[in-house]
């Protein structure tokens, strides 16, 4: 795809907080869902996309009242902000764009000023004093724009003295906007595909079968071992649920090969499901409990139908957030699975355990052509664990990487672990109509990456999130790096793992040798 000309933010040796530039990103707004996609989601559609339904104002306030009564987070967060400013320089979109409405508190205020006007004493009687405003079309437009300049990454929530999480506000706002006719096209187009076909890409079962067969052949050609990629195999021990990008995108697919090799080496039976051929759950992004539940229930149904004993998730950030935190709530109880294992389990927990028990034969030198760093994905860092202890979401991936690679170096301390920066494409923003935002929002991460590249000879950045991987593939070139500098963690595992019988027959593998 041709590179479009955007003003690429500078990357510097030390981060600099920009001076505010009002309206810098006021033009940024994703495509609004057309009637087809709105109705596919059960959302109302106005006559013209981008317009509002009749009686939108009353409806919005009614929805808001409902949300305030259903989500403690929203109700409390609307009240407790003191405008201390702690979050103002923490959002990657603010750092990359300088637009003050991309400061987390200002983003929340888009909704808070309406909350104050209609739901609080001070705002009802002294609106000017407390910055309360009437709900107008202009306010709605602003909300649509700026609540789609938030990737729900929660970096602001880490630094807020009151634990206010802008993601909660963004999710609530997006849901209300969709219900007055302003749904976002990207997410609303994808979710019905999951409901109907089973994955975000709309990859039907036959295509999936083809892809997996192709992969088996490819791996066999490569290492001369038949590594299986089973689909819908009843009675398998493990159901693997992985983002559908793992089936076709680079470097995701190399990660999928890595999972398969680990399963192969540990001798466990496993399967993918055509029905639950997607780990991602965009219901989270649009703030819809119902859609998020519906998508989660596919996994329950698939696990029951296939009679599996364990549930393992592939490398995907927000999917792991939903799986780890919400799967039990939305699609539980999971009493029919083997209770001796975490439900669900992260693929890295599985691999780490296999490494600890010496079940894998590893040749680290296979990754010697690379020096790695690790990008903590926002949802994993700030909304999950990968292991038994708090913070294992940081240590487990690094331990696995260092178990399969000789060269590793972390990025700057204030840009990793729970202070990690979002890739710039998370939270339902991974769409071409938001390219400028994605490039600018990637600036803080690109800056810290560039610094370890120049100071420590880092050549590649590993990630465990499908969105991060896709986003970096796209934006790395804008920052003077190459798209193949982003790799999957299980791609590194795949490189280093030596399977039994690997390369036994002929080292220069015979192309004509047919795979059975």
């Amino acid at each position: 795809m041709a590179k479009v000309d955007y003003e690429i933010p500078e990357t510097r040796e030390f981060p600099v907080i920009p001076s505010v530039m009002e309206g810098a990103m006021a033009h940024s707004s994703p495509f609004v869902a057309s009637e087809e996609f709105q109705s596919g989601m059960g959302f109302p559609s106005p006559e013209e996309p981008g317009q509002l339904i009749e009686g939108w104002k009353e409806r919005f306030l009614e929805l808001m009242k409902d949300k305030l009564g259903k989500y403690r987070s929203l109700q409390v967060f609307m009240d407790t902000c003191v405008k201390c400013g702690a979050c103002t320089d923490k959002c990657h979109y603010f750092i990359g764009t300088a637009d003050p409405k991309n400061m987390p508190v200002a983003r929340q205020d888009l909704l808070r000023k309406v909350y104050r006007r209609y739901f609080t004493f001070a705002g009802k009687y002294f609106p000017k004093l407390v910055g309360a405003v009437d709900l107008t079309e202009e306010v709605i437009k602003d909300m649509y724009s700026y609540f789609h300049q938030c990737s729900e990454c929660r970096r602001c929530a880490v630094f807020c003295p009151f634990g206010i999480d802008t993601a909660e506000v963004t999710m609530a706002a997006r849901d209300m906007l969709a219900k007055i006719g302003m749904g976002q096209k990207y997410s609303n187009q994808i979710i019905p595909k999951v409901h109907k076909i089973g994955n975000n890409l709309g990859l039907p079962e036959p295509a999936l079968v083809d892809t997996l067969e192709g992969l088996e052949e490819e791996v066999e050609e490569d290492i001369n071992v038949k590594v299986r990629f089973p689909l819908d195999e009843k009675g398998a021990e493990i159901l693997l649920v992985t983002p559908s990008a793992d089936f076709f995108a680079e470097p995701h697919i190399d990660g999928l090969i890595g999972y398969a090799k680990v399963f192969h080496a540990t001798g466990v039976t496993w399967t993918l499901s055509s029905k639950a051929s997607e780990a991602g759950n965009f219901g989270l992004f649009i703030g819809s409990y119902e859609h998020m539940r519906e998508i989660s229930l596919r996994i329950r149904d698939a696990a029951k139908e296939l009679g599996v004993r364990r549930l393992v998730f592939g490398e995907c950030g927000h999917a792991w957030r939903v799986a780890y935190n919400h799967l039990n709530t939305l699609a539980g109880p999971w009493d029919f699975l083997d209770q001796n294992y975490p439900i669900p389990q992260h693929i890295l927990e599985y691999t780490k355990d296999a490494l600890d028990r010496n079940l894998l034969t590893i040749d680290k030198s296979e990754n010697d052509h690379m020096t790695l760093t690790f990008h903590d994905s926002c949802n994993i860092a700030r909304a999950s664990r990968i292991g038994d202890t708090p913070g294992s979401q940081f240590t487990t991936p690094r331990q696995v990487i260092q178990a399969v690679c000789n060269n590793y170096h972390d990025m700057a301390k204030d840009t990793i672990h729970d202070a990690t920066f979002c890739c710039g494409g998370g939270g339902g923003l991974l769409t071409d109509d938001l390219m400028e935002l994605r490039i600018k929002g990637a600036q803080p991460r690109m800056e810290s990456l560039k610094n370890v590249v120049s100071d420590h000879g880092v050549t590649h950045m590993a990630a465990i999130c499908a969105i991060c991987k896709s986003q970096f593939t796209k934006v790395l070139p804008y920052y003077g790096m190459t798209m193949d500098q982003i790799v999957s963690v299980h791609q590194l595992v795949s490189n280093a793992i030596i399977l039994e019988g690997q390369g036994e027959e002929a080292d220069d593998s015979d192309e004509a040798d047919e795979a059975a």
Partner: protein
Amino acid sequence: MSALSILYVILFYVAMITLVAGITNKMLQYKRVPAPLKIAVTPAPLTRTGVVYRFFTEVVLFNSLFRATKWTWIFGFMFHASLLLAFFRHLRYVISPDSILWPLVNNMVVQSFGHYAGFAMLVGLLGLFGRRIFVDRVRYISSPSDYLMLILIMGIAGTGLSIVYVAHTDIVQLKAFIMGLFLFDWQNLPGDPILLAHLTMVLFLAVIFPISKLMHAPGLFMAPTRYQIDNPREKRHLSPWGAEIEAKDGRNS
């Protein structure tokens, strides 16, 4: 009893009732609203004790704010710590020397540092005010009420300091007045203008507490991001309305 004293007796009761009822009402509202999903910001504690420790670091040390911005932390911490000391110093108006609670007032920390807490409080408040003016990002998010709140508290601190260092009031009579409020045995209030200004502003602060951002103090404990235990895989979390949805379609059984 003077008319002025009667007025202040009434104002005190109205303000205290508004404060307590208002905060209680708000907290009950928060309690009533369920948290449908697990949203702890991780790394998060795995046990209830861990959550208590997490709040300790937040409430006592302002841990997150410290990580976020050192300047705001310095001024904010200075203000809040002084406020705490000032609170303890003021306890002498409601506790008698023969009470078992008297050591709360009559101790080294309160009597030495507490004496100067008012100044530290003013410095903290001025710092917080300054950042609203000089930091463009904070200026952008500040409403008139944000400035006025600081001015109001500066007024309270300023008049308080004046009573101590400039124009003394009859504190024996003041104590009698305050104790009288608790015992429903109402006494006269000294009529010094500075004292009246001090009390009026304090009462006003109490009245607006439940309807303003001052609710951050109790509200802090109600943030699911901070109070939730990180155990979603081990323990199923389900809200009443989530359970209703389940009951309707039975797909979770």
